[in-house]
C-alpha cells in the first residue's frame, strides 16, 4: 500500500470521518453493516484517490463514492433482522434526560420507516433531513439534478408519512401496544401534528 496516498486520504478524511461513518450506518440496517459499508468506501477512495483533482470537493466526492457502494450493496443484500441493529447497552439516560431505551425504540422505528424507501430516496432523506446537506449538495453527491433530488425527497417523505400513519393507526387498536407517546391528530394532507 502506498503510504503517501494513505496520508493524503487520512488528511482529507479526518474532518468528515464522523459524519461519513455515521451516514454509512444510517444508510444501512445495522451498525455492523454501516461500518462495513464505510470501510469499503474508504478502500475505494484510496484506490481512486488519483482521480480527485480538486481537494476542496473531497467531501462531495467521498459521499458520492459511499452512495455508489451503498446502492450496489443494496441490490445484492439479504434481509437483516433489526433486532440487533444498533449497539444496545445499559445507558441510564441521554444528555437531554431521555431514556436510552426510548431512543433505541425510536431509532428502530425510523430505520424501519427508512427501509421502506428506494435506495436513492433513502439517501436523499438521510443526507438532507439528518445530515443537513443542502439540496444542491445532495444533487452533486447523487450525481443528479436538483429537481430530481427534490422529487426523491417529496416521494420519500410521502412514504415515511404513510408508514407513520399506519403505525399510529395500529397503535389506536385496543390490545395492541402503543409504540410511542399518544397518537397525534393528522393535519390535512397527512401531516402529523
Amino acid at each position: 500500500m502506498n503510504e503517501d496516498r494513505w496520508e493524503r486520504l487520512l488528511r482529507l478524511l479526518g474532518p468528515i470521518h464522523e459524519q461519513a461513518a455515521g451516514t454509512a450506518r444510517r444508510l444501512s440496517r445495522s451498525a455492523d453493516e454501516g461500518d462495513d459499508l464505510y470501510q469499503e468506501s474508504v478502500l475505494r477512495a484510496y484506490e481512486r484517490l488519483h482521480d480527485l483533482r480538486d481537494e476542496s470537493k473531497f467531501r462531495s466526492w467521498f459521499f458520492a463514492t459511499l452512495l455508489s457502494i451503498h446502492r450496489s450493496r443494496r441490490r445484492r443484500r439479504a434481509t437483516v433482522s433489526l433486532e440487533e441493529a444498533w449497539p444496545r447497552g445499559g445507558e441510564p439516560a441521554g444528555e437531554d434526560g431521555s431514556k436510552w431505551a426510548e431512543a433505541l425504540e425510536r431509532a428502530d422505528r425510523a430505520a424501519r420507516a427508512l427501509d421502506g424507501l428506494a435506495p436513492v430516496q433513502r439517501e436523499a432523506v438521510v443526507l438532507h433531513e439528518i445530515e443537513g446537506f443542502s439540496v444542491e449538495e445532495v444533487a452533486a453527491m447523487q450525481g443528479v439534478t436538483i429537481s430530481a433530488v427534490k422529487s426523491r425527497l417529496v416521494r420519500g417523505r410521502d412514504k415515511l408519512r404513510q408508514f407513520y400513519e399506519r403505525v399510529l393507526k395500529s397503535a389506536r387498536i385496543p390490545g395492541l401496544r402503543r409504540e410511542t407517546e399518544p397518537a397525534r391528530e393528522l393535519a390535512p394532507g397527512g401531516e402529523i401534528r
Partner: protein
Amino acid sequence: MNDPKTPDDLRADLAALKKVSDRDLPDLKQVIHDISRRQPERVTPIMGWRRRIMAAVQTMKARPALAALAAAVILIAIGMVVPVSYDRVTGHDVSISLAGAAFTPDQIAPTAKEMKTRLGAEGVQVEASEDNGAARFVFHTTLPERSRAEAARKAGAFVRELAQKGIAASLTVAPHKEHVTSPAVAYAWNQIIQISVDGKSASALESEIKQRLAESGVPDAQVSVKDSPAGGREISVNVQRQNFGGAPAGEQPAPELVLTKNGAPITGGSTVKIKKMKDQTGATSLVVETSDHGKTATATVPNSDKMSDAELQNALTTQFRQAGLNVQVEVVGGQIRVRPIE
C-alpha cells in the same frame, strides 16, 4: 430536522436514529488499520469479466428502459457492421422489338436516336436477328425510373408513335436490378419513409407523402389526407402495382410509410393492403390484409373476379370477423374499402 413539513414524530425518530447510530463510531485509524489487514483479493480475468457482467445485469434489471435502449443500440451497431446482400431496383430495362417489311435497316439509326431522345435514355443498343427469314430488330435501353408504370408510360408512348408510322412494335419492361451489399441499417433505412405530422395541415401532409413516395420510386401513389369531423385524421395511400410474366411479387420497391407525432411513430391506426393475383388460367384471386389497432388479419378470396360486389363484401367480412377483427367492409364497383368499427 431541516424541513418544517416533516412530522414531529418522524423528526424525533430521525434525531434518535442519528444519536443511536453515532454511538461507538469506529476510529478512523482503526478503520485504516482494518483495511490494511484485509487480504488483497486476487481477481482473475474471468472473475473480473464475471463481475462486470453481473453488474451490467443488475443495472439492466433496475432500469428496464435503459436495458431496452441498450438492446436497440446493440442491434443498430450490429446492423451498421453486418452487411446484407439484396437486389435493389435501380431502374427499368426497356426492349422494343420491331419486325416486318415496314421497317428497313436504314431506319435503325434514326429510330435509335429518336428512342434515346424521347425516353431520355443514356444509350440504346440494337440487336438484329433473323426469324424465319424475316429481319427482327430489338432496341434495348435502361431507364432510371424506379417506377415500372412510369417507364412503361414513356416507352408505350414511343411505341404508339411507331405504330402511327406503320411500324409494328412490341414492348417489354423489366426491372433493372443491382445486387448490393451494404449494412443492414442502410437497407432498412432505404425501405422506411418517416414523415412527421406535427403542425402540418391535411393538404401539406398529403403533398409531402406524395413527394416522399415519389422520391422512393412510387410516383403514382394516390394519397388522400382528410381531417375527420369527429376528430383525428384519415390518411389513405393507394398504390397499384402489376407484376408481369409470373415475376414474383415484391420486386417493385415497397417502402414502408411511418408517420410520427412528437418524434414517436403513430400507432393504433388501421391499414389495408389489397393484392389481386391472376394465375396462368386467368383466374383472379384477391388477398386483403388489414391491421386495426395492432391486430392483423388476411382474407383470401379465390375467383374474386366472378363475384358480385355483395358476394365479395360478404366473403371478406366473414373472414375478418372469424379472425376477430371488427371492421366494416364495403365493395362498390370492385373498389374495396375497409373501416374499423368504433
